[in-house]
């Protein structure tokens, strides 16, 4: 009896996870988790387009809304390409900017920390994207960035793109255990 109950709970949970994984959310009226937050200053000296004045709103939640949603993660992958994140992060392997597929996180590996890094920018070149991309898009990119080091469920992580092969696709990578970056900050070549 208990086993049956347990099984049905498990089945319902699996079904819900599957529904969430496959959902395509187009409505944009959902309030962003960062909407009510106070403004924080921009950190990056650069901005991706004509600079805006003022600060950016950061997240009040630690978990991003899209970590279980394969479609959104894939959208994040597309935006990562479109907004030329590869220009510095080179398919996650890192070149001018740090690698994103390894276990080292200079500014934290949580969703909110990555969201902050994207929106505020960071010293030494990371532009501040706050106000230039919507919160929704930022969250998609956050989810994708986390998939690069295997932080998401396997069935959510993206597979290879229709591009030049950049090594193993995200879904094939071994999950890394995030840790703070080695002090002192290493020269940003290679990964691991």
């Amino acid at each position, binding site marked *: 009896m208990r086993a049956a109950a347990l099984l049905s709970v498990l089945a319902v949970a699996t079904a819900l996870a599957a529904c969430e994984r496959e959902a395509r959310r187009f409505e944009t009226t959902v309030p962003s988790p960062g909407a009510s937050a106070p403004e924080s200053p921009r950190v990056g000296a650069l901005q991706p387009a004509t600079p805006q004045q003022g600060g950016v709103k950061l997240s009040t939640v630690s978990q991003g809304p899209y970590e279980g949603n394969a479609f959104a993660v894939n959208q994040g992958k597309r935006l990562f390409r479109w907004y030329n994140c590869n220009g510095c992060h080179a398919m996650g392997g890192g070149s001018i900017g740090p690698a994103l597929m390894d276990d080292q996180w200079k500014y934290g590996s949580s969703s909110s920390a990555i969201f902050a890094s994207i929106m505020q920018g960071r010293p030494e070149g990371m532009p501040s994207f706050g106000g230039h991309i919507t919160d929704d898009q930022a969250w998609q990119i956050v989810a994708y960035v986390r998939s690069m080091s295997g932080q998401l469920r396997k*069935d959510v992580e993206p597979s290879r793109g*229709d591009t030049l*092969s950049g090594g193993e696709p995200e879904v094939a990578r071994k999950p890394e255990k995030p840790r703070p970056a080695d002090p002192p900050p290493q020269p940003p070549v290679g990964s691991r």
Partner: protein
Amino acid sequence: MKRQPSEQEIRDAAPRLRDGPGPGSPEARALDETWSDAPGLIGWFSAINHKTIALRFVVATMLFFGAGGILAALMRLQLARPGNKLMGPDMYNQVFTMHGTTMMFLFAVPVMQAVAVYLVPLMVGTRSIAFPRLNAYAFWVFVFGGLMLYAAFFVNAGADAGWFSYVPLAGPDFSPGKRVDFWAQMITYTELSAIVEAIVVITTALKLRAPGMTLNRMPLFVWAMLVTAFMILFAMPAVMLASTALIMDRLVGTHFYNPAEGGDALLWQHLFWFFGHPEVYLIFIPGLGFISAIIPTFARRPMFGYTAMVLSLIATAFLAFGLWVHHMFATNLPELGKSFFTAASMMIAIPTATQIFCWLATLWTGRLNFKTPLLFVLAFFFILVLGGLTGIILAAVPINLQVHDSYFVVAHLHYVLIGGAVFPLFGAFYYWFPKFTGRMMSERLGRWNFWLMFVGFNVAFFPMHLLGMQGMPRRVYTYQAESGWGQMNFVSTAGALVLAAGVLLFVINALRSWHAGAAAGNDPWGGGTLEWAASSPPAPCNFHALPVVHSRDPVWQPLPSGPPAQPPLPTHVMGLTADERQLLVTTVVDARPDVLHTFPRPSIWPFACAVATTVLFTASIFTAWAVVWGMVPVAIILTLWFWPHRHETARHLAMERKP
């Protein structure tokens, strides 16, 4: 432990009864018992009698047909007026993909195989389909594959890249999540099931025919299923390879369809249509078989032009492999290639035309018994011919480039498939329902059923020709009011609902008649093929004494015409063991008695193996390693399935005669 049975055990296991005496004898009772499936729940899952499995198979495919029909109705409701908000694009794409996939893979091909599993052994005069356990396994695999696809659909993971799943849209970059993986793996299931069924049908038709049923006496329906089965053997591997490459692209990062790394998007289309076009014909050829079975019975004469009919079937099968590119005319092909495929696409009309003319000649020179099955066949002449002619229009490259991927094609393919397969199938249900159940279906409801379907179908699909020519593309979830397509779409939706009402009436008629229909007797229509010599429904062993055949319509003509021969010609077979599932294997061409083959008893292993296969296939959607660890239970079960029991060996040894 001693494994080989002892002399004593073998003596004890010796069979006691041999068949020959007709119904009512102890031998006949023994046969009935021998060929029955076991009672109880485990017995239900262990059943292997071809009629049991076939009926379950038919019901399963018809349930999928119902599901696909509901999806179609939803699509028609969404498109009934411009800018409708019943469904968004995400849902609509899943619905139309599921509709196409269901109808092609879970209904059209398997339902034909299911009917064949029932009828082919009866028509060739034997007691079972070849490899009854494998047959049961194929059925279960099919059911699990279909259920998996629908389970995925209900958790929002319904395939959404079309039943044709063109890459790169269906590839990893543009179809994230698991939706297309479920689709590709469903292919593997139905593929496996279809190939197994094809082998089963081929072996039955070639090796288990009653003595005297030479190849040129084989019923045309069996010919049609034989040709279909051979087509499956050569067509299905293409989609198997294509879908495996797709799933590997999606799961383990291969580059078959990635142009950036040397792959090619058109590779998918070539492989898919190398399967996809024969697929149409392997839906359509069984339909031709139904018609060739129904027309002689209701025209009260043997089929005109038997040889021409057989050659036409074979020619169609060959040509069907030579015209896949006509689905790809818009992809920048060399001109010469296009001309070749145009010619091939038009020439395939010739064998079909030949058959149509032969049927017309049969009807012309016969006397008509005007019953519901014949109505459905006559509808075929209207609908299929129209569909075939629009097919000829489509084969012309310049016109094809205009109407390709428009509603014109939607109309065409439904005229061909519904006219060429579904109408004959419904006719076949009315025709053989008495054989399946022992009861007649209601004629009155049958006529209502027919007219609703016929009118509904034409109202639903004829306007689509015009919509296509006005520029309405396929696979759109909505359209704008300014397009002016609203009215015709509305008419089409109304027709679709009438069609649905017709199908519903069929279901009502079938359910009612199953319980309360008039008793049918062995041969209610006066048919000429062997299934009408069996009782209705047939005994578990089909025939208490296997017939010996001397003509093409053995029920009409049990002995050759002319004065009786001296000594008299044999009319039936005797000497098969009645308390074992033994049957007679004959030679391929002349059907001379050759070998006795003993089939295994019912077993749970086919079901268990199908479960293990399901675990393997479904798990491999989530991890490629499932292909490795999932093989272990499958291998173990197959070994147990194969491994003989000592008592079984004792019985076999008691009957054994070495060649």
